[in-house]
């Protein structure tokens, strides 16, 4: 890869983008955008705005950093897992079980001055060389802690699912902004044109609240939208032709199309889009075989199938998605998001009623496959260039939501997320919540800091990567910017 061209003064931003594109996959970029889009988007050079393709020197003059990660796997624990029952060990809390304390909370039930503590429902024990305390919900993941960086002091802008999901996926609680995966693909382009660069796998029980808004391209071109990959049946919408059009018949038709389109284009020089569209049909043809190949798990050896838990009815579904994620990473897909949990209520981590039932179910479905994914990536040497992210849109409160029972309400004031792999240290924990785990108090990190960290690990400058829209250089981390979480960077 040639170094990004940072001097684009006196050229329009889009022309610069175009030229830089030539450095690492011009076909990909121009194919996605099309020359007329670039042309239509050309803006007057302002000579100041940062290069959207990063590798960008921060304003103080620091060194350009090399990307550590090439791909991202975001394991989205939709509904909001409880931090104090998973990775944020609060020994005090057991003792307070059932006692009423003054601790302000803010959840779907509004603001409360305090409430009845629900003690953690699982034992914690130390794991690994780092001695990280992990709850018994995650016996498999416990063994991976030396590869994981835990962030215990996350906070988000909303304790309501809809807006918090948007916050976590698109950086804002207001709808209309591109999602993280769109930004990553915008910043880096694709490595494998036979597969989409941004893939989303949903839970069997349904999509998350707001559906496609969570993998939207927002104000970016439609090509940056996430593609929903189904793990059963046809993986991508309309990937499979109607029965009458399969195999050689389709090839005959495509050859005919190609010949006719070439004649048409020959009479219309100067319109590169025509050639580009001819190529898209060939790419579509290849995708028809590449995508089913990518999702075909029959090639996976028995040991791998067992490792992920493909043989266990409880873990089978999520295991399938985790194996797929690895296969997609191997095939150059940039951004993969897997939802653990879908729909509403106990179909996801949203434990308002029976905490034990809910979290046992969702941890039980995912613990082994996720641990296997980390292990598998590592043994193939892929973990170094793959950034794995685990977490939900928020966490849960230490207190009970209702007079009776163990249900916890939403909590965006403090929760845990973890990252592993390309660009982050293993065996570290940063930030702290208070003794109750109710809110982040030390080294607090906003969702923006998480996003900045992800972009940074991919070699992008979070405060430089921008998209011009509505009179502004829009950024995932907002116009005011955000720093990566330096403590966890390798």
């Amino acid at each position, binding site marked *: 890869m040639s170094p990004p061209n940072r001097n684009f003064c006196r050229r329009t931003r889009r022309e610069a983008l175009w030229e830089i594109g030539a450095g690492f996959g011009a076909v990909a970029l121009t194919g*996605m*955008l099309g020359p007329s889009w670039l*042309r239509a988007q*050309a*803006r007057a050079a302002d000579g*100041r705005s940062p290069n959207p393709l990063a590798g960008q020197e921060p304003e103080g003059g620091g060194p350009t950093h090399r990307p550590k990660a090439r791909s991202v796997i975001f394991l989205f624990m939709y509904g909001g897992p409880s931090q104090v029952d998973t990775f944020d060990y609060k020994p*005090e809390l057991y*003792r307070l079980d059932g*006692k009423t*304390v003054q*601790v302000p909370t803010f959840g779907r039930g509004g603001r409360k001055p305090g409430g009845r503590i629900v003690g953690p429902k699982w034992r914690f024990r130390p794991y690994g060389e780092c001695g990280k305390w992990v709850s018994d919900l995650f016996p498999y993941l416990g063994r991976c802690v030396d590869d994981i960086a835990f962030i215990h002091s996350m906070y988000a802008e909303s304790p309501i699912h*809809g*807006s918090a999901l948007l916050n976590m996926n698109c950086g804002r609680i*207001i*709808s*209309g902004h591109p999602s993280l995966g769109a930004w990553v693909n915008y910043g880096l382009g694709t490595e494998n044109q036979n597969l989409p660069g941004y893939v989303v796998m949903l839970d069997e029980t*349904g*999509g*998350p*609240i*707001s*559906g*496609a*808004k969570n993998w939207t*391209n927002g104000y970016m071109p*439609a090509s940056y939208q996430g593609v929903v990959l*189904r793990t059963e049946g*046809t993986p*991508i*919408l*309309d*990937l499979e032709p*109607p029965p*009458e059009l399969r195999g*050689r*018949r389709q090839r*005959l*038709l495509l050859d*005919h*199309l190609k010949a006719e*389109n070439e004649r*048409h284009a020959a009479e*219309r*020089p*100067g*319109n590169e889009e025509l050639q580009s*569209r*001819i190529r898209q049909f060939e790419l*579509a043809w290849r*995708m028809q075989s590449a995508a089913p190949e990518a999702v075909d798990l029959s090639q996976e050896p028995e040991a791998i199938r067992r490792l992920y838990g493909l043989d266990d009815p409880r873990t089978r579904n999520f295991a399938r998605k985790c194996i797929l994620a690895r296969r997609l990473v191997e095939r150059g897909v940039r951004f993969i998001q897997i939802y653990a949990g879908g*729909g*509403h209520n106990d179909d996801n981590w949203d434990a308002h009623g029976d905490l034990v039932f809910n979290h046992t179910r969702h941890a039980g479905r995912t613990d082994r496959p996720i641990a296997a994914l980390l292990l598998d990536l590592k043994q193939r040497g892929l973990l170094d260039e793959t950034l794995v992210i685990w977490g939900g849109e928020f966490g849960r409160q230490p207190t009970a939501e209702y007079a009776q029972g163990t249900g916890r309400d939403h909590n965006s004031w403090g929760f845990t997320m973890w990252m592993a792999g390309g660009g982050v240290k293993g065996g570290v924990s940063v930030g702290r919540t*208070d*003794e109750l785990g109710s809110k982040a108090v030390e080294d607090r990190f*906003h969702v923006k800091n998480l996003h900045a960290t992800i972009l940074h690990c991919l070699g992008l400058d979070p405060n430089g990567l921008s998209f011009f829209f*509505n*009179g*502004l250089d829009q950024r995932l981390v907002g116009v005011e910017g*955000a*720093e990566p979480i330096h403590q966890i960077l390798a």
Partner: protein
Amino acid sequence: MALPALLFAAALGSGAGGPPPVQEPVWEEVRPLLERRCLPCHGGERVKSRFRLATATTFRRGGARGPAVDPGDPARSRLLEVIGYGNPDLAMPPDGRLPEAEIEVLRRWVLAGAPWPEGPEGRLADPERFPDEPEGAGREALNWWAWTTSPKPELPRGAASGAAHPVDAFLLADLNEAGLRPAPRAAPRVLLRRATLALTGLPPTPEETSAFLEAVERRGFEAAWEELLDRLLASPHYGEQMARRWMDLVRYAETNGYERDARKTNIWRYRDWLIRSFEEDKPWDRFVLEQLAGDELATYAPELVPPEDPTGPLLATGYYLLGLWQDEPVDVAQSQADELADVVDTTAQAFLGLTLGCARCHDHKADPISQRDYYAFTAWFNNLLGYGGGAVGQHLGGGFTTPVADRPRPGQESVAERDRRIAAVDLELRPFLEELRRKVPERTGEERILVADAAAGPALWRYHLGEAPAAWPAPGFDDASWAEGPSGFGREGTPGSRIGTPWTGDRIQLRTRFRLTSIPEGLVLRFHHDDDLQVFLNGVLVFERSGYVTEYQEVQLPSEAVDALVVGSNVLAVSCVQDFGGQYVDVGLRSGWLSDASQEEAWRIRLASQGERFLSPERWAEARRLLAERRSLEELPVAEPYPALIAVERGPEAPVQHVLLRGSVHARGEVVEPGVPRVFLQDGRRGPVPPEPPPGARSSGRRLALARWLVGEGRFFSARVQANRLWQYAFGRGLCPTPGDFGHLGQPPTHPELLDYLAWELLERDGSLKEMLRFLMTSEAWMRASTAGAETLEADPLNRLYARFPPRRLTAEEYRDSLLRTSGLLNPARFGPSVFPPLPEEILTTASRPDQAWGVSPPEEANRRSLYIHVKRSLRFPLLAALDQPEPDLACPERFPTNVPTQALMTLNGSFPWEAAEALARRVEAEAGDRAGRVERAVERVLGRPCAPQETARHLALLDRLEQEEGLSPHGALQLFCLGLYNLNEFFWID
């Protein structure tokens, strides 16, 4: 109760221990902190909140909220407040709280009075990185093409002056200068397809093609072209095509977004208003006035209310309710401010070509637009009640609606007109009623109680609670199993009630019988109800009232009631439905007449029944004619009011508008008066002035004042923005290629003089969009071929000079609609609620409630044009979304055409193109007998041109292989071929 340790700690921290002793601050420690932490946003290049830290002087001056350090009481200084992170909206630095040690350094410094050395020693960082610039954008920035007006430009002189058309004169001037020869005129057939798609969004049919070519042949191109444009501009599909373009701009969607993504009640009425407005060629100024202030016309400018469509301007203000709406915000006030900002940004973009949004949080980076400007502009709209009617909550998902009637359709009257005409007949009837009153005896002797009410009786009724059984009011219904009770059913305490039988459920049905030995002439019903009442005589519904009353009332039943009576046993049946509050039902029935003169209705019934007996034959004939006329007027189809989302304000007084620092409602700055950005007020131009609300006004009139300015004093600016869009609609891209941003961050126009000229043309043509499109489309530039020689391509690859016509791809909607039209599947019905073409299971499962994700429409409805497809924010129609229909969350002045393999998958493998191909195959099979004829017919239909012989041979070769090598049936092969046609670049692109 055991308090956790941290709570104690917090209590200690909050001042109980008193401030620690002040230590001597060290400037060497403070300075790097200020430089590193504050200067990036409060330095030379970026001066947020007008607070600049460069030197001691600028620091002392402070920012938008005053000085950062209060010398009198340093402990209460703003600087300490913001770094303390107490108020999240004023927390600094915004990307995270400073480490404690750094806060402590700054705190000590501030408490010591923030000593800052003057001179070079106190100058932060290096001056190159943070030059001491004058504040705000300078004169240069103001002198920008988009904020200046010009008189109508003269046509260019010289070689171009020979051009017959002004557009060509301007374009040729530049082309000549560049030494480029424009492309020749395209073939008539190419122009027909280009024009038909541009103006209707649909391709021409073979019949239209041959008619046009024949006209060219017979009467010459110019005449045929004029005629074609006339036809297309009058087409019912013109309004649809224009409406779809406007819908992008105003981010039209039919749901609110976010978790519930609830449907906006009847918001399609705004879409229908758009279609009708374009169809009728509503002048640009009316189009602006009605959308921005249609609801204010009746109060502030009644002369502007169109008499033929008095409710249209109300529906136009659906404009304000199209946006995102959060029913469950974390911060209600902020969410409502966001809603308002969304309106402000969209309005500035659509009507002024201004990206005002970035001035919401700070002064515009590139344009001379201050935060003050932004909030002054906001003040025009800040009295709007908002989507939820001033509240939030999940139950308000449908929006705060107002009943509004549609414009009466042909053969339909408005309610007001019907009532006026009935009143005129009543006036004529009145003498007859007088005469009858004089002539009939005081009592006719036939008065008899048939069923007693609770006061006169009571009567015994059979009654049934809950849902009504089938056919229960019929005489033959068996009510033997029903309970029996005395009349007066309800709950104690209901005003005017007399309870005989308690009733507390939500529904009751009552039946009783009475005998007649002869049929009376008149029937009087006595009733009391709370709530909705229905009365049946022998199964015939004779009376109906909703709501409730608080005392007994009487009504003369119409002649249908008398007609329902029989000699012998009759059944009186009553039902009542309870809503909430009071609860009661009772009726009584007697024969005879209401004699109160004020009961005109009763006397009219009596006139119909007894007029013949008491009036002279001539008078009776006249009375009968009038009664019949009245009856037909009552049955006149009228446009009834029903719920609509329209603009509603809080009242005549708009609230005070503050500048909101960083865009946060919790950080109020100075107060601003309504105004337009100062860039538009150069050369002595004045801004709009809010009116004085007259007594009884329900709105402030501010929006109307702004709208009138946009089409008055500021008309040139809005006309230029619209003229640019018309060019964009005709040529595929604007003369200013960034139609939503005329500012410094947009691209300057390729032909600024031409753009000004067009703005004047639009104004001079009284804002007629149709005339403007006709004007543009009669230029040679528009009719040029879309190809050019190598020399031209080399010299002007981006076609900035329009030496050729810019080819473009079909839009998502044009693609889908073209498939429907050419295959014969199109249902051309217009208007009305949106439709739900079926979605694949794969798409539905992406929703969190897959079973409620989408609706169902009958198959023929599913084949309506694409602009009638339901627009759901969280579940976009995949085919349209993939082909670049924009996300409807934010205004989209120009679409991004993308080119990706997933599009090819959809157009090749998707079920919709496959069905269209099937329909097309069947269609051409019916039209032609042999394979070659079918192939040629399909090409004609899809591509709008005849199939060349060698081309037919190539297509037939494909069919041969598909049939012979692949064993497909002739029909199967033809279907595949048709699918191929729909995927050709020639079909996808407009030359």
